[in-house]
């Protein structure tokens, strides 16, 4: 019995097996994209969903086999497919690197991605354009896998831009409403600002080190620079800029809340579980650069702490359940940045993984509520749903417990507690306190979300007539993700020891118990406070109605007014400038040119009568004229 199993595992861990399986993980979603894109809407709903879900499902199976092989022999492997570009010494290859970090990311992308694709088959039924939806979703999975598997920064950048494009396409999926289109624009443009930083950072690294290969960069960097060197600080800051845009951290965070305009499975996959955590992955992957740049690393932690507080307060004052989750995503990614900032890369990736589980669960449960309540997603119109939607309620309770880090039973407790512990071990008390305040806020807004959505009385006809979702595609993802969001999910230890350096708190035990106790106490007292505020006394409502309470509520509701700030300092001056430049002399010349072209076009289009005989006559006359002129010349 054991013999064939061992042989199988040994076979899986060989280089040949990896070389065969690793490309499959991204080729399968690519195949799905191509099939769906070229079917041009001829596939039925069922078939489109089958292709869309199946391709990611098979990629997940390939990932599982890779993980089994990796468990048998945890040697990092590189699979080179072909040379992408060859310009002199610069030869970036399409080359995939499998190590503990990329395997963890791959598992999250294909595993959670598959569950979300499956859920989407339930969520999207009855909507137009399912083929388009799955085309983009598969393209997203393909790009995201390229991002995490690429062994050089150029391939990573290809995936990075690919996920940005898919994010844009899926945010503006319901394109009939112009607001959704603007939300897509906003996400695309703001993340593009970060991407420019990342690109410049890549150029800088290439110009100084002569390579874009990540392993080589990490090897060469300590030899080329001393810690704190200006160049390496600059490179780290540029990489950080890219990560800030993608991961929606201060000051490039404003797009994420508007990105909720897309379908809810998109929010779960792209704007919670995978794409927005790409920045965390980037910093963890390039840890060697950040180790040499203490200032950039410190800034990373500081931005993480500020974002987690800012977004935590903003989440308290949202009424749209998806916006609450969006701000909580920002806040949780802030925790990951905080962990990165204290040098605890493995802890950041661990929180990334548990966050992917419970935030995907929360978003999918929110999707279940939204569809069940006839597309009502405002908390003020919901309520009293816990009896009617037991599965979604279960999802919210389990996911919410993990988000608020309910001690011992939830996955979030283990990862968040680890972050706080690492902050203390790195002697960063400020970050630790920010993290604790953030934990209190998390408990508050999570409980507010659950109480407001599921308890009390139904506040609209849509909520009163809620219909619970049924079926395999609805139930399975919620149940699996709920299981992963409990302490069972925290048992999955990402195999990061060989890839990332140990955090400051690894191997130290003194004081760990105290941090655990404090974190647990903060989470529990936050929950108790929330129950008192939102559940029993409803004191919050009175507090938010008058005076300073109302002002704060407005401030937090608009997320500290960043949108308005950017509107006044950047968008309006730019639009004014554009309006000024619109009517200058050069513009007049071009307008004249356009008019001329238009005139000629009108004249020529007159000759298109649509009569075949007329064309034949014209052709004959033309041919005769040409022949005559030739005859005359000769």
């Amino acid at each position: 019995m054991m013999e064939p199993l061992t042989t199988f595992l040994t076979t899986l861990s060989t280089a040949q097996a990896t070389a065969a399986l690793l490309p499959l993980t991204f080729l399968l979603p690519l195949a799905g994209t191509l099939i769906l894109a070229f079917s041009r809407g001829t596939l039925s709903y069922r078939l489109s969903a089958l292709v869309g879900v199946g391709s990611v499902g098979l990629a997940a199976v390939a990932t599982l086999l890779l993980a089994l092989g990796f468990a048998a022999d945890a040697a990092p492997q590189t699979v080179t497919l072909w040379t992408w570009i060859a310009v002199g010494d610069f030869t970036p290859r399409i080359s995939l690197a499998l190590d503990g970090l990329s395997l963890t990311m791959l598992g999250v992308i294909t595993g959670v991605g598959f569950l979300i694709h499956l859920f989407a088959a339930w969520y999207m039924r009855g909507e137009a354009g399912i083929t388009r939806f799955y085309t983009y979703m598969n393209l997203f999975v393909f790009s995201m896998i390229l991002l995490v598997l690429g062994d050089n920064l150029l391939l990573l950048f290809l995936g990075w831009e690919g996920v940005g494009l898919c994010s844009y396409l899926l945010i503006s999926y319901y394109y009939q409403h112009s607001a959704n289109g603007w939300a897509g624009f906003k996400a695309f443009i703001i993340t593009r600002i970060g991407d420019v930083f990342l690109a410049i950072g890549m150029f800088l690294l290439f110009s100084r080190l002569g390579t874009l290969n990540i392993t080589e960069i990490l090897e060469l960097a300590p030899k080329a620079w001393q810690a704190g060197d200006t160049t390496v600080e600059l490179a780290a800051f540029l990489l950080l800029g890219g990560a800030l845009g993608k991961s929606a951290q201060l000051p490039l965070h404003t797009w994420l809340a508007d990105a909720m305009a897309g379908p809810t499975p998109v929010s779960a996959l792209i704007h919670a579980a995978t794409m927005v955590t790409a920045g965390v992955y980037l910093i963890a992957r390039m840890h060697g650069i950040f180790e040499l740049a203490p200032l950039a690393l410190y800034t990373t932690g500081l931005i993480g702490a500020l974002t987690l507080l800012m977004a935590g307060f903003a989440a308290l004052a949202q009424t749209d359940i998806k916006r609450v989750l969006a701000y909580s995503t920002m806040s949780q990614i802030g925790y990951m940045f905080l962990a990165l900032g204290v040098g605890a890369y493995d802890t950041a990736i661990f929180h990334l993984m548990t966050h992917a589980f419970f935030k995907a669960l929360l978003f999918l449960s929110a999707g279940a509520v939204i569809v069940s309540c006839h597309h009502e997603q405002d908390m003020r119109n919901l309520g009293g749903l816990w009896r009617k939607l037991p599965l979604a309620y279960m999802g919210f309770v389990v996911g919410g417990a993990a988000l608020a880090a309910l001690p011992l039973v939830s996955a979030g407790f283990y990862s968040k507690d680890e972050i706080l512990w690492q902050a203390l071990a790195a002697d960063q008390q400020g970050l630790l306190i920010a993290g604790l305040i953030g934990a209190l806020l998390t408990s508050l807004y999570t409980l507010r979300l659950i109480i407001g959505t599921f308890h009390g009385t139904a506040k609209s006809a849509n909520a009163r007539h809620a219909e619970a979702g049924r079926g395999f595609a609805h139930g399975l993802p919620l149940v699996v993700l709920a299981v992963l969001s409990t302490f069972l999910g925290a048992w999955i230890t990402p195999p990061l020891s060989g890839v990332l350096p140990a955090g400051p708190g690894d191997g130290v035990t003194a004081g760990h118990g105290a941090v655990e106790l404090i974190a647990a106490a903060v989470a529990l007292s936050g929950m108790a406070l929330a129950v008192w505020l939102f559940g029993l006394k409803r004191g919050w409502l009175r507090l938010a109605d008058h005076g300073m309470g109302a002002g704060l509520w407005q401030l937090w509701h608009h997320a500290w007014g960043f949108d308005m700030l950017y509107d006044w300092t950047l968008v309006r001056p730019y639009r004014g400038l554009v309006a000024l430049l619109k009517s200058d002399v050069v513009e007049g010349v071009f307008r004249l040119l356009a008019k001329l072209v238009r005139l000629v076009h009108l004249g020529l289009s007159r000759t298109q009568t649509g009569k075949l005989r007329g064309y034949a006559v014209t052709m004959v006359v033309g041919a005769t004229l040409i022949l005559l002129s030739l005859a005359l010349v000769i």
Partner: protein
Amino acid sequence: MNGVPMEHGLVLAATLFALGLCGLMFRRNMIFVLMSLEIMLNAAGLAFIVAGTGWQQPQGQVMFLLVITLAAAEASVGLALLIQLYHRFKTLNIDVASRMRG
């Protein structure tokens, strides 16, 4: 080919070509338009044969074979279009099918 001078053959081919061209330009019925096209193709083929024989070269016949192959393909596509035209407009008048104007 002795006896018939090459000019005669070429004049016949030119006449046939002109007849076909006139039919193409002035006929409304699509069947006749297609037939005119066939006539023009065959006129060109005839010119090849005549020239090939006149100059004692085999290429003329080779070209003719190419021309009939082309004509067969053209006829099949043309007839398919004709059937579509009739399906859509219940008439064979090509002037009716003028939606692609301007």
